[in-house]
């Protein structure tokens, strides 16, 4: 069915063809390089602020292990260290107190007997510990439920409008010949070039004039005319043979029917791609919502989680945890929509 199948099919029992090796090497490398850091991000989101600042970073989240020791009738939780004593023996001791470079250590089993140890001769005993408070604290303190609703609203609305308006425009630009078509196309491609950060101030004035500040529509509308979407869909629609459309016109189909009954279904994979990207972009949009939304009733998740970024300090442990939490919905959407990409159009009677 596809090139690679032919290219990678193992040649009649003669062992692996070089393309097989290459394919699998690429996939394994991809797994490590693409997925590794992302997995590490998830693990890091369970680290305490101190562990996040640590050099070199650990792979798994660790915390110092403590033991309960009774000293002078009081039960205390003391940190445990692997200690090398002067006579060369290695023991696990708990630290009672530390003054300068010398620590007073005791054996948890025998707390009355203390030894003084130079802190260079010991390493903390650590165990894997997940700092779930990174997730729980921000969820309790902030109205993340409302932020979630706002984000869902923005993402859904923006995606629906994007798909509709972009596919209509792309249809007109790919399947009709009219004067000014190239001019419109050029305009669209030209505006692709303008980075948002450059347009911020003028766009702010426009939104402000329209009374859309501090509203979710102020976030949605400027994003839906994305030139990327029009460009992507038009390029895809160009591959649909005009004969199909002519045949439909013979059958007295209206132009609108041609658009939604013939062209749209055949554009399925490209629409699915655009839908996935639209969801991801709108969900992760940060700079623009930050400018438009300054009241917490209309905060989206990205704006909400960035309230942990201060001037002099950033509370990364909260930001990472909330980033991971906000990734879950997009992953679900991706898993759902990506089926459309593979469903393909090769079998729909197109020659």
């Amino acid at each position, binding site marked *: *069915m596809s090139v690679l199948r032919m290219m990678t099919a193992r040649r009649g029992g003669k062992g692996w063809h070089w393309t097989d090796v290459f394919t699998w090497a690429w*996939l394994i490398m991809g797994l490590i390089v693409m997925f590794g850091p992302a997995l590490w991000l998830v693990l890091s989101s369970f680290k305490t602020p101190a562990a996040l600042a640590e050099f*070199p970073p650990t792979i798994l989240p660790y915390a110092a292990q403590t033991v309960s020791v009774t000293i002078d009738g009081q039960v205390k939780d003391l940190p445990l260290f692997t200690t090398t004593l002067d006579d060369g023996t290695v023991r696990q001791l708990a630290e009672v107190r530390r003054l300068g470079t010398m620590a007073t250590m005791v054996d948890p089993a025998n707390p009355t007997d203390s030894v003084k140890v130079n802190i260079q001769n010991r390493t903390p005993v650590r165990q894997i510990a997940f700092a779930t408070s990174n997730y729980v604290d921000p969820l309790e303190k902030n109205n993340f439920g409302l932020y979630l609703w706002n984000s869902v609203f923005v993402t859904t609305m923006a995606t629906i409008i994007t798909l509709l308006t972009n596919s209509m425009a792309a249809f007109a630009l790919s399947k009709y010949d009219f004067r000014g078509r190239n001019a419109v196309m050029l305009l669209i*491609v030209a505006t692709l070039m*303008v980075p948002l950060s*450059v347009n911020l101030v003028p766009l702010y004035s*426009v939104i402000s004039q329209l009374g859309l500040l501090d509203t979710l529509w102020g976030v949605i509308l400027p994003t839906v005319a994305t030139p990327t979407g029009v460009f992507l869909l038009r390029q895809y629609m160009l591959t649909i043979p005009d004969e199909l459309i002519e045949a439909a016109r013979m059958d007295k189909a209206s132009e609108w029917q041609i658009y*939604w009954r013939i062209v749209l279904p055949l554009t399925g994979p490209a629409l699915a791609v655009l839908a996935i990207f639209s969801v991801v972009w709108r969900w992760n949009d*940060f700079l623009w919502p930050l400018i438009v939304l300054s009241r917490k009733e209309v905060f989206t998740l990205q704006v909400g989680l960035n309230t942990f970024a201060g001037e002099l300090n950033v509370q990364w442990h909260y930001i990472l945890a909330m980033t991971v939490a906000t990734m879950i919905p997009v992953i679900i959407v991706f898993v759902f929509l990506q089926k459309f990409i593979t469903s393909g159009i090769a079998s729909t009677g197109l020659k």
Partner: protein
Amino acid sequence: MTASPKPSIGAVLTAPIVWLARAADMPLRAWQRLTGRGGMIAFFLIPNMAVFGIFVIVPLVINFFYSVTGGTALFLSDRPFVGAEHFDRLLTCTDHFNPTTCREDMFWTAVWNTSKFVVLQVSAMTVVAMITALILNSKIPGKAFWRAVFFFPVLLSPVVVGLIWKWILQRQGLLNFALYELDMTQVNWLTERSWAFAATIGVSVWAHVGFYALILLAGLQAIPGDLYEAAEMDGTKPGRVFWRITLPLLYPNLLVVIVLSLIRAVQVFDEVFVLTSGGPGTATLYLTQYIYEVGFASVLRNPGLASAAALMMGGVLVVLTLLQLGLTRWRDRK
């Protein structure tokens, strides 16, 4: 969207859309009878172009006025006309290839850094995305899983991308730790000029390659299978099949990938800003960061200079894209 024999969740979800589309047919038929095909073209174009005009073109025009006015004020009425002064300031150089001889040395440093970045990053991106798409389209077990693996970074916000890689690449980061464990020489990835430059390319490819691979994959899916079957029967060599069938039929998608990645590369900012902030020195200072710093990040903003730089950057891009589109047309005609 595609017709499926048994009702799936997708079909249930699209049912209201189908119903709406059907309901819209009557009035639109009337409109078509009234205005002809031209009216329908307008109908298809207007919603998108209206939003586009208000939220893209109008700000662009305002931006143009910024570039010819001076001062630090943000509202046009408070800004005096200065003509081409900003452009003059940006373009004054004894030798344009040597930024230190320029009045705005940072601008020209950014221009040359960005040019170098764009050429290398777009080539790397296209090749990696192409290979990935071909492999994902081939017969491998667990396709959905592998697709997710390569797509995953696209889901991350740029700030997080920059941050993860900073933790990996910094002097005491994960990579150097691994090298230390393996008894290999450690490298200051982010404070040596060429390594830092390579890191910005690598990280931006990492973050976006899933996006482009997916576009190419959608294109590969659309290539009719019988073409390959015919080729197989003729005993055509796989390499030849790729050059003669796959590549030509994939051309529209490939063009999307090249144009979009080119534009994105020119505008590269967020993840690089977190990763290197333009350092070491100014080795990874790119244009958008320059514009951002001049126009927004400093307390004494200079929106005029920022807009002038942005318009010049946009102008260059328009020319580049025109060349590319012209090339397509020339190729199509051939």
